[in-house]
């Protein structure tokens, strides 16, 4: 087990390095730069800025400097948000996204798993059809549509919920609803199909024949086997969700990290692009390792090598 984890961590570091390297060179290949605006700034000012942030050096040298600094935990200053370091921005914005995202994942799991099970157990019945319709909608309807609808009904028409910011629990309701719609629907569908698969297995029939109570069959025998695909999905989903959604943050004016991914790219804020990308890559890699370990506990047949 320890050996396995060590191996995975080693692989993870290589993966993150590869992501960082590819991102670094790709982003520098795209035309444009951080110091351009509709109004041209003087050549002296541009030159001074480039010198200040080391952009006047050859690309490969900048790459080496960047990787060296990053290894020491220094992700540099944001090129656009003058006076803030990339770490400042992540430290300031990630907790906000993570709070919204964490709630979203909880909602998705707490709703998705039971509803998926119910759909599987009531297969072909009205409840199953209803859940399937909702799940299909949840997957098909993009989040900005959901956001707009929520905003219109709960914010503008009913005036039940505040529309701007995150200053009370009420402010969390709409963003969490909007964000959790898709993962809930996805988990419901995963849960339903894998549950159906498990329910048809021989050992289920054996358990039933042995007279195990229905409740136990479901929880001890079926759920534990059926939940594996959900775990696979939840790992990376968690990483994406806690780093924030650009659309939802924009519509509800949430000061989260999601918006920084997009604005950094649009503004060619090179250091921030690198910082957010490495951060997300790291989270995803960590979540994948965690998922593998959780597998082992859920299904002892799986051997971690």
């Amino acid at each position, binding site marked *: 087990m320890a050996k396995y984890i060590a191996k995975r961590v080693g692989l993870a570091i290589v993966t993150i390095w590869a992501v960082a390297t590819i991102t670094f060179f790709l982003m520098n290949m795209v035309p444009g730069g951080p110091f*351009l605006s509709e109004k041209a700034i*003087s050549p002296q000012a541009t030159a*001074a800025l480039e010198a*200040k942030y080391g952009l006047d050096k050859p690309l490969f040298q900048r790459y080496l400097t960047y990787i060296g600094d990053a290894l020491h935990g220094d992700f540099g200053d944001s090129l656009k948000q*003058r*006076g803030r370091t990339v770490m400042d921005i992540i430290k300031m914005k990630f907790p906000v996204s*993570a709070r919204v995202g964490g709630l979203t*994942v909880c909602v998705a799991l707490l709703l998705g798993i039971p509803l998926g099970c119910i759909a599987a157990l009531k297969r072909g019945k009205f409840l199953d059809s209803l859940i399937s319709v909702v799940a299909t909608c949840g997957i098909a309807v993009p989040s900005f549509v959901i956001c707009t609808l929520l905003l219109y009904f709960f914010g503008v028409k009913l005036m039940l919920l505040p529309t701007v*910011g995150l200053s009370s629990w009420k402010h969390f309701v709409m963003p969490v609803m909007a964000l959790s719609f898709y993962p809930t629907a996805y988990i419901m569908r995963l849960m339903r199909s894998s549950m159906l698969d498990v329910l048809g297995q021989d050992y289920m029939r054996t358990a039933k024949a042995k007279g195990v109570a229905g409740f136990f069959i479901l929880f001890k025998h079926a759920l534990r086997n059926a939940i594996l695909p959900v775990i696979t999905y939840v790992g990376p989903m968690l990483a994406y969700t806690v780093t924030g959604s650009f659309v939802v943050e924009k519509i509800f004016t949430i000061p989260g990290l999601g918006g920084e991914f997009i604005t950094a790219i649009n503004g060619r804020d090179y250091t921030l692009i690198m910082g957010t990308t490495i951060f997300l890559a790291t989270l995803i890699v960590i979540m994948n390792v965690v998922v593998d370990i959780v597998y082992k506990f859920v299904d002892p047949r799986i051997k971690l090598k």
Partner: protein
Amino acid sequence: MKKRVIALMLAVTMVFGLTACGGGNSGSSDGAGSTDAEQSTDDGADATGSTDDSGESAEAPAAASGEKILSVQVGPDPETIDPALNSAVDGGNMLLHSFECLLTVDEDGKLAPGQAESWETSEDGLTWTFHLREGLKWSDGTDLTANDFVYSWKRVCDPMVAAPYAETVLAMVVGYDQAIEGDLDALQVVAEDDQTLVVTLSAPCSYFGSLAAFATLSPVQQATIEANGDAWATSAETYISNGPFYVSEWVPGSYILMSKNPNYWNADAIKLDGIKWNLIEDANASYSAYQTGEVLFIKDVPTEEIPSLSGNADFYVDPIIGTYYLSVNTEREPFNDPKVRKALSLAIDREYVAGTLMQGTYSAASNFMGPGWIDTDGSQFIDNANGGQPYIDVTNYEANLEEAKQLLADAGYPDGEGFPSISYSTNDAGYHRVVAEYLQQAWGELGIDLTVDIVEWASFTPMRRNGDYDSARNGWVGDYSDPSNMLDLLYSTNGNNDGNFNNADYDAAMETSRTTLDAKERSEALHTAEDILMEETGCIPVAYYNDFWLQSDKITGSWHSPYGYWYFMYADIADGAGADNADNAEADNADNAEADNADNAEADNAEAEVAE
């Protein structure tokens, strides 16, 4: 075993929720050894979770607390609110409320005393002397003197600061060239005593007063900048200012809260206790917030709502000094022929573009220099242009089109025969795409085949600047109302001369306007320049910019300037604010007419003009 599984799964899902909830606090304790700036940004993030009051105070400004906080939206998170670094309109609007320059611009667009009580110019126009008010203070209560302006202005020239507007505002000061190379003390800005600031110019600059009122030249406090570096302007604690308000809280991406500055010299005239700038990025979101009354003023109105809003008492359209124009690459065939350029220009139905495609939020442009630019004698520049006649008669599109066809034939392309296929490049925002599609049709009338090239914003700017296009969207909003600010764009070596327009007579006229001391001669030179520009069609003006916004009638005493700024510092919130203001839209005009707010009246006029 089972328990452990459940516990682990719970841990995985909850750990983020928990760290998230405790994020702000743990950040602060981590920050024990870090700089002040870091700590305070952590506090900022923390505040997201804890401040319930600010949201409510916006909804009920006249609530029990007695705090009168005006909640507005002028744009998303500003990139910077460091006066030296800002180059954006929304950032400038915030600077206007937190800082005050030597001079200010009043409601009528005239220069007025600011931190300087009076000022005078020497006869040769080269020496400007500003006399500061007595007892000026920073928002932290310390004294503000002429030396603070000396420091701030030199800082603008500092190559390590790399202020985008340095050249615009200080290039005419003696020693500027040495200063931008790093020798800051060469800049001839001298504090003769604590209350007298003397500036020596290398050439007369009749509009230097406007520059002295320009946000880049706001005073900034040396102590806080030296202690905090660039980070001084990123958190409320270190952001010391001298204007009617100071920043008391900033949650990046969420809001900036400004509180009344009791140390401001004219604090008695300030009626609001604070202004909350909601950093809403999405136009639909800001419109919702306006409808629910969470925000009383929004700048970003969804364009699809405009048809239903125009005519409402709370929907305003007011001109700003700026022009939406097309750059044509004058170095490329066939655009090197002025006849071709003029034909392309005349084939555009500007009234249709501004009135219909742009839904009346723009006005058809007959000149390059639109309304709001001030001539040397204080009159409207446009009234004196071309002998008082428009360069292009925008009301007679049919005749223009005939002339365009004739010009194209004269240039050797009758009915567009032999005319190469050309492209039009633009980024995709606002009305840019519909204008591009219209151009395909309009230039199609001349027999020209146009392809539209939509380019991502960050790639578009360098592409246009490098001349890597046939024709492209362009635009400019003035920084100050002197016409040179926009006419300079077409000067052969200007960094924004994207079309590479190169005309010796034009350059000569602009040179004259820079050096002459005679107001009349200067005015003539500027008009000559515009004459040449329009005759040669150095660029194709299409429409004049307007600002359009929604403003509750509960706001009184605010005004909008042709620079694209809203002045809320002397505003007030009428009684009854905080009550349900969703029925704003239905509020009748009577309230507006009663309010002795000249701007409302002006805005209504403008709206009427646009509507016609």
